[in-house]
């Protein structure tokens, strides 16, 4: 009965490959996010979608492309993977008109070799 679920949990791939991470929330929230957590545990927002509309787009290489097919799903596609993309990517959701609390998924650990 996971609130925010993301797949895959682990992803190991070669430099130059393209990969996707999927996220789904069953909380009825209107806003979804992608955060990147680097090796030093620093959490940095990448993107945010509110009702399928992109509202936050931080300074992220355009190799990263989010897609929100509906309010409950937010996917992240990464082209031409680089070593520096290795990190844990967290999906989160919130209800901006409600409590605003962020609910995080368990993370997707991406390792680029």
């Amino acid at each position: 009965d996971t609130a925010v679920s993301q797949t895959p949990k682990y992803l190991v791939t070669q430099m130059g490959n393209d990969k996707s991470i999927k996220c789904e929330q069953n909380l009825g929230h209107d806003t979804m996010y992608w955060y990147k957590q680097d090796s030093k545990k620093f959490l940095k927002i990448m993107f945010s979608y509110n009702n399928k509309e992109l509202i936050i787009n931080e300074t992220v290489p355009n190799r990263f492309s989010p897609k929100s097919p509906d309010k409950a799903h937010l996917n992240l596609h990464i082209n031409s993977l680089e070593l520096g993309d290795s990190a844990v990517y967290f999906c989160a959701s919130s209800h901006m008109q409600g409590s605003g609390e962020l609910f995080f998924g368990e993370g997707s650990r991406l390792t680029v070799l």
Partner: protein
Amino acid sequence: QQQVKQSPQSLIVQKGGISIINCAYENTAFDYFPWYQQFPGKGPALLIAIRPDVSEKKEGRFTISFNKSAKQFSLHIMDSQPGDSATYFCAATYNFNKFYFGSGTKLNVKP
């Protein structure tokens, strides 16, 4: 520029002791200050949060102290337990638009 600065980076406390983690912010427009707890292999989870119109909020063994004039807030964990060992993040946001996180504090509570 880091909007929220957190210290210390790591903390070791004996069981039963008090753990204190500090955060400072710059933007006076921030109106919500949550603390998140993250266990290894898991996503961060909301622990406790405060708004700037109160100076303290307590939930069980966890207390946030908030100093608006100094633009600082801190998390106090009373009677720290080994199960509290985790990484703690402070955060700040304005109108829930974007959350800015501190750099995290890894807490180790020794039995």
